[in-house]
């Protein structure tokens, strides 16, 4: 602590340059924080998805005009496949609420979903309530917030592409409750398959949009998915079975993969700052060599001098990292309306303690690497030459 005035004076030797370096470090760490946070989000999505939960889609989903070719009867056939512990049929009712741009979909499930996807955040009592209330829905927290709905509200859903058997213009759903957070599924709305199916026009009834299934052994998931598809390959409705985790990995890496770009970008930003910091410290040490020579003459051990240089390097880095991360959090919290609309599909970065610790570690490493060459010079310093100003 007694060296603090010395370090402080050294930092403010050239205030303009000190502030500029610190600003450069801060903006780079803002970018770094956003990239690391984004990467953490993608990692969490993959981590939270499970290998022992699979879903079955129609293999040639777009072949028929209806887009669906899987009769409910397939459920029993899939359930008989060795290793499958539960299968649930799902329909997906797509429409909008109030405004055609406010799209809302109901994930309509049957009673087998309790076992097929036990991670769904409903209590046994809530499951009973849902299955006993034909028009009942449970709504994900994010979707509840965006639609401004709470338990007891009604959700009239208009479905332009699907007609009801009774000719009614809309579906009158009743919000039974808001579900707690389930990472990656905050916008899910659970409804009743039997009600949705029976209300559809007769030609649309009896088909599942998806089957959701659980397997006993996660390590056999790939094998089981191949077996299901093989078994149904020559049926009238060939299937495509995919483990949730595989689908999540694919989703993260497909489209224009942002996930694969986060590390290179973060590295580019850090490397730039490394150049700037290293240069700044080297310049400072070079210009202050006589100062260090005086300290050495007064008996300061070399380790103390090195500590002073390191502290001088670390302070702007750590300060820049801290404030840069703060800015990154603020940027990530910006309401979607303030972001360019083209970027609205970007997921929110995650700022976990791990992300902070990683950034801090990078800042310290940056200071250390940046100080290597100046430290070398300091170690080789000849006190007599330095004092003589040579």
């Amino acid at each position, binding site marked *: 602590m007694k060296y603090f005035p010395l370090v402080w004076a050294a930092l403010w030797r050239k205030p303009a340059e000190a502030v500029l370096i610190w600003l450069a470090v801060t903006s780079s760490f803002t970018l770094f924080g956003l990239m690391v946070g984004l990467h953490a989000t993608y990692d969490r999505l993959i981590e939270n998805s499970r290998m022992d939960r699979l879903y079955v889609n129609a293999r040639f989903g777009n*072949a028929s005009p209806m887009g669906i070719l899987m009769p409910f009867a397939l459920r029993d056939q899939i359930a008989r496949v060795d290793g499958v512990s539960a299968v649930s049929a799902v329909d997906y009712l797509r429409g909008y609420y109030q405004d055609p741009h406010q799209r809302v979909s109901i994930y309509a499930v049957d009673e087998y979903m309790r076992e097929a996807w036990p991670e769904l955040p409903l209590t046994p009592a809530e499951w009973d309530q849902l299955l006993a209330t034909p028009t009942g829905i449970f709504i994900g927290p994010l979707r509840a917030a965006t639609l401004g709905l709470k338990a007891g509200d009604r959700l009239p859903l208009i479905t332009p592409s699907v007609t009801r058997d009774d000719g009614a213009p809309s579906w009158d759903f009743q919000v039974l409750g808001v579900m707690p957070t389930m990472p990656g599924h905050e916008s899910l709305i659970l409804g009743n398959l039997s009600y949705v199916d029976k209300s559809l026009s007769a030609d649309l009834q009896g088909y599942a949009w998806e089957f959701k299934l659980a397997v006993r052994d996660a390590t056999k998931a790939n094998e089981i998915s191949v077996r299901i598809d093989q078994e149904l390959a020559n049926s009238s409705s060939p299937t495509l079975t995919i483990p949730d985790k595989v689908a999540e990995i694919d989703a993260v890496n497909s489209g224009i993969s942002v996930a694969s770009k986060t590390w290179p970008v973060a590295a580019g930003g850090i490397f730039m700052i490394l150049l700037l910091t290293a240069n700044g410290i080297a310049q400072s040490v070079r210009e202050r060599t006589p100062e260090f020579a005086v300290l050495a003459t007064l008996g300061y051990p070399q380790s103390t001098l090195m500590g002073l240089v390191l502290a001088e390097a670390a302070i702007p880095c750590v300060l820049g990292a801290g404030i840069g991360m703060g800015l990154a959090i603020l940027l990530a919290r910006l309401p979607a309306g303030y972001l360019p609309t083209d970027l609205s599909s970007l997921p929110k970065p995650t700022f976990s303690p791990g992300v902070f610790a990683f950034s801090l570690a990078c800042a310290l490493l940056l200071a250390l690497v940046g100080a290597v060459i100046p430290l070398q010079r300091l170690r080789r310093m000849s006190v007599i030459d330095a004092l003589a100003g040579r």
Partner: protein
Amino acid sequence: MRWVRQTLVLTHLGFLGLLERKWSSLVLVGSVACVVGVLLSMLSVTEGMLRAYRLGEDPQLAIVLGPDNATEWGHGIPASDIGTLLDAPGIARSPDGHPLADPEVLLSVPPAGAYLIGGPVLRGIGPAGLAMHPHLRIVEGRQFHSGQHELTIGMAAAHVFQLRVGDLIPMPGGTWPIVGSFTDGGSTLESVFLADADTVLTAGRTTGYGSVLVKLKSPDAFDAFSQWVSTNPALKESAEPMTGYLQRGAHQFSAFFTALAYAVGSIMALGALFGTVKLMYAAVSVRTREIATLRAIGYEPLPVALSVLLETTTLALTGALMGSAVAWLLFDGKLTTQARNVYVLSVSGHLIALGLAWALALAVLGGTPPAIRAARGSVRDVLAT
């Protein structure tokens, strides 16, 4: 004239001193290289994508889409409508007199191996369609035969998804063999399977086509053609120039990533900007005495400021060229799959020019404050110390 000469002398002196300040100069070059390198690497994705889409652009082509359908995915065009559509005015004819209009259909055909979700899309196409792709060349095997359960594969798709001539592809109602592979001058067609449209329709138990590709006699024929289609009481379809359709599709996939590249590039550039100001302040302060001496013998402030800006610009442009070179070496010509299409990443001349423009902007913004400080320094104060 005098200040031009003075600027040149000052710039020359500045460059002579660069060796003295080699590390800080290299840092400036390196920082700009990082910004431009990251920006161009990211943009190479969308550049390659847009280039592939542009290859399909032909002002004589038009696309007819089904009702309520903005894309070719779908089955909104019943086979019975095709005969009516062929009567539309302005459709060009092949040398043997057939109208150049091709009903097409898209089908998602995931390859065998259930958990491999990625795979090429199948485009059902007819003889007129093949005639409308003049660059299409069979590389291995042969073209598919009409009415046969077989398909061919684009080279890009074959490469990325590791499919070969002879492989069997699961299709509705059984497997179809790949009988050939083709190139099409780098267009997006190289990312798909091709098969006979009518055979695909029958196998998929599908009732309608997704689109009709039409070659018009001239680009001017589009208005009359479109008008005829939309006002014909027997048809519900609508026509769109192919160029506009492709641009819409390209924008849909590229807009997000382009915006992301610019957002990332801007934050990095901000960091580099602060760095540039700092480095040039330092450079100017090292030269304080030199500049003051020159000022004392009659050099004016403007040439001093200009020489600092010129030096900053030269360093930044060098950095931009280095960054472009790295991006080009790492990414240009590499294949990538995005949204089920295969694209060749491209660090084009246009992108490199963009990188140079960013560097120039950085140099001017970052070099101006130090340039002003250099020009303003009091000659007497400096020389008195």
